[in-house]
Every structure is written in structure tokens, then in C-alpha cells.
């Protein structure tokens, strides 16, 4: 017995080559997974924190539906309300105005996209009560109020929403390496809000974006989509430019890979929220990559130039505010045709 002890110990201390190989593979797999997990950790955190936002939309008489928002069937057409907001520092957190509201209907089967810009100054009954410019809905009741207000007034069903802040747009475009745009006309503005990364956020600055094809960085792209004072169509002209930039961003994002996600998430940190879950975001990215810009329909509810009643709206003064009065008899058929 005494002589068998050391022999057993020698056998026991020798590791079988197969076991060693299996152990090595497992260890490498684990360490590889750990490396990948570390790489995508910001995406997971953002996925948990910024996507899948619960929205409880109160039922309404005209477009009522039970809460929470029911999702469109997988693979079926769905409608997203895109919201873009002013700099948060002018307002209390989550009580910002939405400078940009764009309804986007995506039809994955036919690869068609329809974008309809809602004028920010449109005077409508809010879901939270009373009437105001539509851009105030979000400030009174967050995404739920914005969705409910749009649904009730435009008689559409909104499946999802996505909100982005101005800084988020700048960072996103910069992380994408800029976007290519054909600027249709000089965009000059002597009263452009100087509220990004400055101490005094109520100042103004002059901007000039020259016409022609060019590569825009985030800051210039924001000037292009945000300026409205010298546009003969005011907010309507700006809406058209916003759609143009959205398409340019879409063109650039179609070149992204999964490995770009942490950078994109970092760019949008605190500047992006959506009701879409990670699954839908992932499928939407896949669908976006397959879309042809020729299959994108753009609708702007432009105003009448001088008091006629054949356009979608007209300007007016309510309580000292410049507002846009909707011509629902013109708007609703267009909405119904494009957002069935």
C-alpha cells in the first residue's frame, strides 16, 4: 500500500490531453465571451435603459385603444412617431418642447417608407386637456401625451415612438463620420439659438449653410435642420430639411455593422428614448439597410402663402402666439391615404 501512494499521485497529477484540450477550449470560449460582453456592455445597458420605454396612452374617443400600446404584428407595417427636442437645459427634465414631429410608416414587405412632418406650431386640442401648439404635448405629458395628441387629431395609430435630443443628433452624425447632403438653397439665419454647450442658453448666433452638395458634420447639420427664421415657409421648410437629413442619416447607417453599436449608443447616451424593444430596433436596422431612397415618400403639411384655404393650414395669432391652424378637411384625407 505504501508503494502505491506516490504512483497514484503521479497519475492523478498528470492531466489527460483530451481533458486539457476541452478545458482550454472552454476557458478560451469563456474569456472570448467575456471580451465580447465587455465590448457590447454599453449597448446592453442602453438597451435596458433607453429602449422598450413603457408608454401608457389614455384611451380616446376618436382613435381610442387600450393601454399599453399594442405592438404591430411582426413583419407587418408599423408607424413610428419621431420626436426631436430643444436643448433640455431650457426646461425641466422630460418637459421639453418637440421641435420636430415626424410620423414614419414602415412597410417591411414592400420596403416603402412614408414620412409626414407635423408642423410644431399646429394648434390642436391636447390629450392632456385644452388647446395649444402640438409641440407642447410632450412637455405636458411626455411621449404618451404626444402620441395620444397626434393619434386623436390625425386619426392614426402609432405603434412606437423614438425621441432624440439636439445634442444626440449632433453626436450621432459625428459618430457616423458626417452625412452627405445637397443643400437646396442658402440657409441664413441671424437669430439662430445659441444654446449648445454654452453657459448662457438664451443667446443667438448667425448661421450660413451654403447651397450645393457637401459633407456636413453634426453641428452644421443641426443648423441646417433647425434654422427657420429666414425660410419663406418657416417651420414647413425646416420640416422638409429634417426629412432630407433623416434620409441622409439612413443612408449612412446602412453601412454600419454590429461592432459600431457601442459608439452609436455612446453618442446617444441620455439623448435617445424609444418604446421599441431591442428586437424591433434590430429588425428595423435590418429593414432600413434594405430600403431604397426611391421608395421613400415625403409629405409636408405646408401652409397657404396668403389666406387661401386650399392648403393644409394657415397662419394665425392666438393669444399673442404665432400658430398654424390646421385645415383638417385637407389634412385627414392625406393622412388616411398614407397612414391607413
Amino acid at each position: 500500500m505504501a508503494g502505491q501512494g506516490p504512483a497514484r499521485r503521479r497519475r492523478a497529477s498528470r492531466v489527460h490531453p483530451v481533458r486539457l484540450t476541452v478545458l482550454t477550449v472552454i476557458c478560451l470560449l469563456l474569456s472570448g465571451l467575456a471580451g465580447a460582453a465587455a465590448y457590447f456592455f454599453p449597448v446592453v445597458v442602453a438597451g435596458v435603459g433607453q429602449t422598450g420605454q413603457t408608454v401608457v396612452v389614455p384611451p380616446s374617443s376618436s382613435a381610442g385603444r387600450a393601454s399599453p400600446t399594442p405592438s404591430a404584428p411582426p413583419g407587418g407595417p408599423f408607424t413610428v412617431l419621431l420626436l426631436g427636442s430643444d436643448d433640455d437645459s431650457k426646461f425641466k427634465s422630460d418637459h421639453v418642447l418637440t421641435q420636430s414631429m415626424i410620423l414614419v410608416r414602415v412597410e417591411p414587405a414592400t420596403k416603402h417608407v412614408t414620412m409626414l412632418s407635423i408642423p410644431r406650431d399646429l394648434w390642436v386640442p391636447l390629450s392632456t386637456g385644452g388647446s395649444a401648439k402640438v409641440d407642447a404635448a410632450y412637455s405636458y405629458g411626455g411621449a404618451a401625451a404626444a402620441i395620444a395628441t397626434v393619434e386623436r387629431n390625425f386619426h392614426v395609430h402609432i405603434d412606437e415612438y423614438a425621441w432624440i435630443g439636439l445634442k444626440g443628433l449632433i453626436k450621432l452624425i459625428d459618430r457616423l463620420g458626417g452625412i452627405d447632403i445637397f443643400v437646396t438653397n442658402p440657409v441664413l439665419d441671424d437669430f439662430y439659438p445659441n444654446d449648445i454647450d454654452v453657459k448662457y442658453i438664451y443667446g443667438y448666433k448667425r448661421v450660413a449653410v451654403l447651397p450645393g452638395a457637401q459633407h456636413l458634420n453634426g453641428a452644421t447639420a443641426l443648423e441646417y435642420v433647425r434654422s427657420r427664421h429666414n425660410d419663406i415657409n418657416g417651420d414647413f421648410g425646416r420640416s422638409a430639411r429634417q426629412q432630407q437629413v433623416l434620409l441622409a442619416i439612413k443612408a449612412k447607417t446602412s453601412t454600419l455593422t454590429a461592432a459600431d453599436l457601442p459608439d452609436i449608443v455612446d453618442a446617444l447616451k441620455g439623448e435617445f428614448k424609444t418604446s421599441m424593444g431591442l428586437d424591433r430596433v434590430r429588425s428595423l436596422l435590418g429593414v432600413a439597410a434594405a430600403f431604397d431612397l426611391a421608395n421613400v415618400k415625403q409629405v409636408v403639411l405646408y401652409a397657404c402663402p396668403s389666406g387661401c384655404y386650399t392648403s393644409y393650414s394657415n397662419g394665425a395669432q392666438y393669444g399673442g402666439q404665432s400658430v398654424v391652424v390646421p385645415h383638417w378637411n385637407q389634412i385627414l384625407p392625406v393622412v388616411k391615404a398614407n397612414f391607413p
Partner: protein
Amino acid sequence: MIARRIAAILFLPMMFAFGSGVYLYLGTMKSKVVKERAQLPTVTKPRFVLPGTVLVVQEGRLFKLNAGSFTEIGPPGAWSQPALTPDHTKLIAVSRSGFYSDLYLLDLDGHVIKRLTKNDARIIDANHWVFYPHVSPDGATLTYSLDSPKYGFQVDLAVWSMPLNGTQAQARRRTTPNGHTGGDVSPIPLAGGGLLFVRHSIDPSTAAYSQIYYQSRPLAVPTPLTSEADDCSQPALSPDGTQLAMICTGGKQTAKVEVAPFTGSALGPAKVLLDGRLYAAPAWSPDGKALAYFAPAGAAGHFQLWYLALPDLAPSASASASATPSAGATPSVRASPSPAPTPPVPIQVTQGVDLSATSPPAWF
């Protein structure tokens, strides 16, 4: 037991290294489009040697491309839109600051000779923008776009002229732009006192158009040479004044490079040389046999300089070639463009840079 411990100790750094390797490897899998950053022209080697010298701009810095290599010229600043004097001995360039821009006269090595305009002011909206300098064929007059007059929110560029050797106080306005459209840009003074320029208009449906106009004398009612639907801009007149290169989009987000015969006051049928990309800022070679222009190369979208040897551009019967402006001629909107019979093949000149596509190349 000791061997196992040693193996385990060796395994840990190996696992750490492998995990880090995976992390770093994923970083290399990022889209090349996003990763691609523009380089300074001076550290790049052009792919094609252009004849002559070309001045271009990247991020506010002036560069001279000659014999296949770049040299930076000019003092630090935010420079753009270099334009040569007709004798090719000096250049005018725009220097842009936060709230205003000014024109400067520089020598060809970029030394400032003279500040030509003074557009800064203490009150923000009393500042002015000046862009698109162009010297008349006789070298006497400087024409440019200036955002004056302004009315409250209305800020539109109008075409102005001043003596090149004079002062801004002698400047006179030549055009009255459409209000709240951004205004009139890209002026080209002609030998007989006429003017080509681009006017913008926006209709209530928010569609914006640019048209190339001819104006016989200052403040005269100009005549459109191109239609709204063609949406043409960025005109460049050939050295002999008989051909006009331009960018036309047809209201789309892609562009065509077109060339049409020019009589001095009217355009003939245009030929489409290139179609389907974001082309910008065509400029003629000194001998008038080629064009340089900007267009993105690759999906990153950085604008590179391209060269296009021109096919036979003999003017058709409908538009006789004449460099002399004819005062009695009736300008008319040109006929629809026709595709060139043998499409010329563009050659990419620069690589890895991101040139300013709103600063046309100055080629001499």
C-alpha cells in the same frame, strides 16, 4: 499539484489576453465608412497629376495642388472660395468668422495683400456674410454675394460689385433676390458688363429651386437661362466664354454635370456629362478641354477632386458659339439636356482628403 497550479497561473493571463483580443478584434470590425477620417491634403499623394495648379480648401485651410503634390498656403483661419484674378497673379478668398465673413486679396503663396471688405459689427445682426467672389474679365471689378440689405428675420444674399482697387463704400448692388430664400449666389461677371448668377426660389410646397440667370446690367430684370424643374446651379464659364458647365439636380438629391454652349446671353442645349452622384463645383481647365469637380469617393462621403477630359463639345446649330455678349439677343430657357454620345470617364485625382465642396477649385 504544483504543475496544475503553474498551469492555472499560466492560463489566467492567456484567458485575459484572449478576451482582450476578442474585444480589440470587435473594434476592428467597425464599419470602415465610420472609421475613415479625412487626412490633410499635404500628407496624401494624389492618384492623378493634374496639369497646371489648382487651389482647393479643406476645413478652412487653403491648399495648392501642383505637379502632384499639395502645399498649404495662407495664414491660419477659416478660408474658403478662392477665386483667381484674370491674370492669375493674385487670388481673392473668403475669410469666415463666427458671425461674419470678409474678402481678402492674397498673392498665390497665400500672403494677405489687402482686406477688401469689413463686415463685422458689435451687434450680432449688424454683421454681414460675403461669399462667392469673382473678378471681372478685365480685372477691374470684384463681384460677390452679400447679405445686404437685411430686414429683421429676412437675410438673403444679393449680388454686389465694387472696384477691385476701390473700397467697399463704392460697392453697388446688382440684384434683388427673392425674399426668404437665401438669395442670389455664384455671380460670374461677363466681358460686356452682363452677369450670370444663380437665383433661389421656394414654392409653398417647400420645394426649393435654383436657376441660372442672365442680367444685362445692374438691377435690370434678369432672364432665366435654365428652368425651375432642371434646378441648375454652380455655373462655371469656360476660359473662352463659349461653354457653361453647371450642376443640375432636377429637384433630387443626386446631381448631373452638364455643359451647354453659351452665346454671351443665352444657353444652347446642354449635354449631360455625368449623372447620379453628388457632384459639386465644376471648374474649367486653363485650356478649356477638361473639368475638375468634387464628388464623394466611397461610402464615407468625403469629397475628392475629380478630373474629366471633355468629349467634343462643338456647339449645335441652335446656339452659335460667341464669347461676345450680344445686347440684342433674346435669352431663353435652354432646351432639355441630352446625354453625351460617348460618356467621358472621370478620373479621381485626390484620395483620403475631404475637400470643401462649396469652394470651387481655382484652376490655372
